């Protein structure tokens, strides 16, 4: 089974976030970059599924030249090759534009004899959270689509059984291929790269194309920072002497009754 995984280069944030001068992006000074955690899980699922079926994994991204780092990171953990659709201004691409670009790659590759049986994405990107590309891509390709998926297993009939957490509990789908599946983190532990994997990634083939002009007309306008929740820590004390203060707090928040 040949699998295409679509990933996005995002700032690797942990604590407070500041916006850049345009208001449409994150101030990336001092920040590293990574792929979204849903996508890390998608890569992990792709590697496992490809290994089980004797297939290959190709990773694709639309992003700046530096996004090759994220492609190589995916190769370092087991993907075979990468496709970089390069643009200096990724923020100009709305979800529909991205879906269009990916769809074109899938069609072009099919014409040249490389078919992808399965296209994996993350549910949404860590920085923009649009939650749209998967379904728009499926629509564009005319494929069935699943979202919120956490684990995959190939079926005997050549399809995929996919599981995810739905509102009522575990949802189990069986889908024929080709298909688009949007992954939600939590079903698998993404592996770390090995040294040899990293060395292989350095030499892995990355096909590079220039991105077309975005045409769908729904780019990001601006970002807004949510109100920062103030958190403070009060040390109640140390050892047995702290017990009465702890009891007071537990009573105050209603965990125990006086």
């Amino acid at each position, binding site marked *: 089974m040949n699998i295409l995984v679509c990933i996005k280069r995002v700032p690797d944030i*942990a*604590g*407070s976030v*500041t916006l850049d001068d345009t208001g449409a992006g994150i101030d990336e000074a001092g920040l*590293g970059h990574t792929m979204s955690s849903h996508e890390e899980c998608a890569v992990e699922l792709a590697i496992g599924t490809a290994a089980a079926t004797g297939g290959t994994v190709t990773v694709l991204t639309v992003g700046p030249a530096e996004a090759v780092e994220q492609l190589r990171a995916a190769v370092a953990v087991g993907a075979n090759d990468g496709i970089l659709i390069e643009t200096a201004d990724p923020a100009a691409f709305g979800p529909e534009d991205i879906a269009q670009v990916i769809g074109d790659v899938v069609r072009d590759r099919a014409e040249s004899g490389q078919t992808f049986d399965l296209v994996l994405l993350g549910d949404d990107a860590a920085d923009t959270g649009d939650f749209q590309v998967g379904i728009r891509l499926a629509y564009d390709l005319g494929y069935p689509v699943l979202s919120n998926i956490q684990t995959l297993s190939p079926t005997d009939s050549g399809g995929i059984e996919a599981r995810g957490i739905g509102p009522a509990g575990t949802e189990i789908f069986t889908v024929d291929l080709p298909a688009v599946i949007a992954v939600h983190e939590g079903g698998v532990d993404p592996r770390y790269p090995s*040294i*040899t994997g*990293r*060395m292989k990634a350095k030499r892995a083939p990355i096909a590079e194309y220039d991105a077309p002009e975005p045409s769908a007309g729904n780019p990001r306008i601006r970002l807004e920072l949510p109100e920062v929740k103030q958190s403070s820590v009060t040390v109640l004390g140390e050892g047995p002497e702290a017990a009465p203060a702890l009891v007071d707090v537990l009573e105050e928040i209603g965990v125990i009754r006086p």
Partner: protein
Amino acid sequence: MASIPAQASVVVVGAGIVGNSLVHHLAELGWTDIVQVDKGPLPNPGGSTGHASNFIFPVDHSREITDLTLDSMRQYKELGVFTESGGFEVARTEERMQELRRRMASARAWGIESELVTPAEVAEKVPFLDPEVIVGAFWTPTVGVVDSVRAGTMMRESAESKGALTVSPNTEVTGIDVEDGRIVRVHTTKGEIATERILVACGVWSPRIAAMAGASIPLSPAVHQMISVGPVPQLAERPGEISFPIVRDMDTFCYERQHGSDMEIGSYAHRPILHEPDDIPSNESAKLSPTEMPFTDEDFDPQLEQAVELMPEVLSNPEVEIRYAINGLLSLTPDGPAVLGESPEVKGLWSAAAVWIKEGPGVGRAVAEWMTHGLPEIDVQAADIARFHSHQRTRTHVQARTSEGFNKTYGIVHPAEQWNSDRNIRLSPMHEREKELSAVFFEAGGWERPQWYESNAGLLEEFGEAVMDRSAEWDSRWWSPIINAEHLALRKRAGLVDLSSFVIFDVFGPAALDAVQRIALAQMDVTIGRVVYTPILDEGGGFRSDLTIMRLAHDRFRVVTGAAHGMVDLKWFADRLPETGAQIADLTSSWTTIGLWGPRARDILAAVTDADVSHEGFRFGTCRTIEIDSLEVLASRISYVGDLGWELYVPMESGLKLWDLLFDAGREHGLVPVGLGVYGTTGRIEKGYRAFGAELDSERSVVEVGMSRPKVKPQDFIGRDAHLRHREAEPKTVLCSLTVDDHTSSSGEKRFMLGGEPIVSANGEPLVDGHGRGAYVTSAGSAPSLGKHVLMAFLPPAEAVLGNRLQVVYMEEFYPVTVASVDSTSLFDPENERIRS
């Protein structure tokens, strides 16, 4: 929210290994009302200590660093946070093996057990290392790892338990108030603290804090990349944090260090990656910690392959994953050593910055002692914050030199190696002439100084074998036989030396005599026009400096000292002036100095002046202004090369004219330009002249270096009591000059020691003096007039016997030496007839 004390005896900024060690030692020394702040949380506030690899190799070429490391290891052991693992420095090349032989010399000199071992012996202890990749290794069994965060916590708590310390984490310093040049107040996010002292021990952020007081701590945050890979089955089999020796793969500038079931691989091989202190992320916005910056894969990729070569079995295992990877920040200074002591810019601003884990507790103790009574037991003068000349504090200089220095961390650095970056900062007025003479420039304090002149190559023929040429590449790197030829030409005829790099300052005012009298060991109440060479002692009777002082008037004294240490001397004097009546003026950039020495010096000087320069008319040890052409020149008849002659001082802008006048007049007398190779080494070593930082330091007394005078002046001076005690006691060590009797190595090549080598007995036993110090070469150099290579070394008194046959160990071979002087008697011209002719 806890408030902060309104007053403190000292505010310590930083709760890493250095700050924590400092509060501990200050409390031990009796300090109370200490306040320690850190902008991060405890126990790991997010600085460099928190991500350090925490291993310690005790052997360093620097005695000062080794002393601090050994003291730190002792402290870590006392705290119970030291685990001995042993460590290898492995060599992949023959060039590195030579460096490891030098390492052995340092180990022997500092008395640390080490040995050179074969690849098979390495593989025996580290079975997953491929012995085929290496040619040998340097093994130190006492290498180990520490828990620096735990150690810091224990030290901090010890100060707290004494009631001496208030700790305030999550507290950022926002401003520092300075009044009349002194610290008066520190502003923090939790309130103001009135204090006279702030101790900056916050590593990479230190420049930012110092800048709040208008001062500088010259360092740059720099990236050291590290990854941690695991789980490694071979490591997981054994219990505990570390059970295999640490391996420094010296030629790839990397190390491999076990950490439980993981292997840490650190690199000093990547491009220098500097950051600005202000650009380091806050604790809130950092993904890991502020000093664990995002890893840049492409910088580390080349090291991965080299690491796999060395430990293929472990590192090419696909199950072994890269679980942690950082661009860790550490602090680098423009010249290498740490930045310790009170700032010369603001009173009460103390620095303890750019310190590694292996020196942290030792530095904490030394700086605490320094703050308390001014006398750190371990001499840390090489790290004194006062050492920097103004240009060395600039961002451009700091960035240039830290960039250049980063890859030297595991590099093979020749003792005379010069910096390439940020040169030509201070040029003497004669610089263009010197370039025309094809001078080879070495740098000191930013000054470009001719080390020798290629234009003197013709002298090689004149002096033939006497120039003592060296065939071994290492011995002759940063060296030329022309130095020795210039020396011989000076001794035979005359030499002209550009001494513009002298640090010169005047002490003047009605209390000037009292001031210098109190600072100098020698009698300063001398007639006007006397030049006095004097040791400068600390309260313990150890050397703070040695320099010359000219009495120019009843109320004016001119101090002349060297470029390397002169800025420290300036602060030493400035700090010890009386409250009123004496001032100090730095005239370094006002005066240039030209040295004229040699048997023809008088003839040459007489040719350009009508002044009486006869022996009777211009006695040794005197100075006065003479007219040379249209210049007024302050001539001082002294010599650091041991020959007849003068130091000639003129305003900087007239230096070129004086140089040209002397040069022209000297032509018929065979005058040659002479570089600092003669002035700094050959000239002084055959005269037995001591150099500060080599022979002279705070540990050895005036008596032990053979410089005590018949009488001690009756006036009080700093260090007098201690000096009197030293004179009564038997010396614990004796500074000697030794000659090398045979230079022939096992390969038949003649080898020449460069300094730092151990001296051992005739049967190879170590020699240890009464201070517990092993004997080692403090200075080495050609003595061309004697046809000998001369070494200076402190020997145990019983060994300090003329004619005593000992050995020097160079590159792990033994060469016979003979003790040739056991006091300051010169090997060349012992009666000083030349100087006094």
